[in-house]
């Protein structure tokens, strides 16, 4: 089967479009999260999404309708993580752990009350981008535009806070508002990414493109662009490869991201060795 044939399938077109948008968003946000050492927030919020999805499924809300429940639950939980770190003198990692445990335990209880894990819930655990509906693509597109607009409006504020939060504060930046914006955007992206790579693998889509870009980038803007490029490429290549080899798409996307990270690491090592040896000559 050639590329054009694969592209002729509607479900592949939808997967490529939605997948690329979601991956670009996660990768860009990942740069800010990794630099702020908040990279595991995606994992925590994904667990909350599991709880939110379990609630939605127990209310007989499926596919796009499940977002009506999971989106507000995850948005509120992301603010809960912030409040815990600001008010309860709990470290960021512990706050993520608390909210994450709450989300996953609520999900397990609701799933067992609803008669065990059904196919829908498992598809959220491991992702199933090929089953994405036109309605879900539409939602992904709208949310992509919203998140990208907010990111571009707050780009320099986010950059300044990633560099040094106190310094940003005394530059007149409302750091608590911008932190809230960052976790809310992350929450939106996590809910979208749930369908792409699943709850178990979401953090890899936030972390791997960002850390790969950090290996190679020669400026902050280049770092954001490289992360977005890797995220998008890994989804496109992952969908084609998984379709050709009949393997799970989500795992293929994550493995490709790992491959890109290894490549970036080796390239950086090679050039840093080369510049050292040139310097000693």
């Amino acid at each position, binding site marked *: 089967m050639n590329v054009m044939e694969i592209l002729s399938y509607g479900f592949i077109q939808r997967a490529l479009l939605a997948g690329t948008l979601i991956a670009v968003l996660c990768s860009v946000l990942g740069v800010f999260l990794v630099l702020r050492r908040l990279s595991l927030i995606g994992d925590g919020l994904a667990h909350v999404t599991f709880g939110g999805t379990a609630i939605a499924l127990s209310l007989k809300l499926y596919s796009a309708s499940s977002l009506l429940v999971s989106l507000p639950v995850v948005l509120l939980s992301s603010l809960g993580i912030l409040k815990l770190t600001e008010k309860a003198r709990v470290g960021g990692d512990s706050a993520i752990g608390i909210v994450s445990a709450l989300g996953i335990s609520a999900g397990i209880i609701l799933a067992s009350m609803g008669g065990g894990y059904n196919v829908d819930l498992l598809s959220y655990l491991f992702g199933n981008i090929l089953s994405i509906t036109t309605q879900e693509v539409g939602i992904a597109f709208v949310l992509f535009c919203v998140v990208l607009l907010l990111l571009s409006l707050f780009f*320099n*504020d986010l*950059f300044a806070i990633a560099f040094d939060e*106190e*310094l940003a504060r*005394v530059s007149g930046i409302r750091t608590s508002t911008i932190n809230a914006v960052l976790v809310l955007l992350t929450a939106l992206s996590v809910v979208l990414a749930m369908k792409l790579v699943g709850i178990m693998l979401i953090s890899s889509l936030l972390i791997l493109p960002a850390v790969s*870009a950090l290996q190679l980038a*020669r*400026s*902050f803007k280049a770092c954001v662009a490289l992360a977005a490029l890797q995220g998008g490429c890994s989804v496109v290549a992952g969908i084609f490869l998984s379709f050709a080899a009949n393997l799970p798409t989500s795992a293929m996307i994550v493995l490709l991201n790992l491959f890109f990270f290894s490549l970036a690491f080796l390239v950086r090592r090679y050039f840093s060795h080369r510049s050292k040896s040139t310097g000693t000559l």
Partner: protein
Amino acid sequence: MPDGIVRTERLCCSYRTGRVLEDITISVEAGDYVGIVGPNGSGKSTLVRALMGLADISDGSASLFGVPCSRFSAWGRIGYLPQSLHLLNPLFPATVAETVGLGLLSLKRFPRRLTHADRGKVDAVLEQLDIYAIRSQLIGELSGGQQQRVLLARALVNNPELLILDEPTAALDPEMRERFYALIGEINSSRRVTVLLVTHDTGAIGKFASKMLYLDKRMLFYGNFEEFCRSADMSALFGEHTQHVMCHRH
């Protein structure tokens, strides 16, 4: 009483462990170069953090440009170089020019976009501090001295009226330290920028500062360097010989 650039009145700061600053009353006028000195844990950094609204004031008052610090918002008038930046993440992917450009955000309103003219300001300050050649390098790849210059450029790029530097020379060797103090002295005199500089280095800063503030949780001395050299309190603190050595270098 006219509004000074910085004014504190019986200022006290406390942490959970107890009071770290007590009864500090100072007035800093335009063009002053104040060296804030004292032993470890004497409250030097707490004082500048309180002025910047980063540490709570438990008693007394403090103002910047006549505005109480708690309500101060004209951050574009201040250039600040905090102590914690010595722990700069070496993997942070910002170039020198991008880092310095962040200093202009205090002059911007939402959405804080940098213009072509802003890039010109960044280039000008990089040239002034003799680091234009490294403008495209990543800040994490620079030596301690170069990083310090970049962070100073970041603090200066908005053309501040007040420069607050919290132990800016901690990572530098003695020769670089002297050059740094001299550079600040030049900025102070040529641009008439008021300077508050926190340091351990009582002797070296005396060469350049117009005023000295000696803290040890309380204010032990505040005045000009000549008074510092004649102060009986400082003789009692340092011993006459040490005081003589510090002042002789001046």
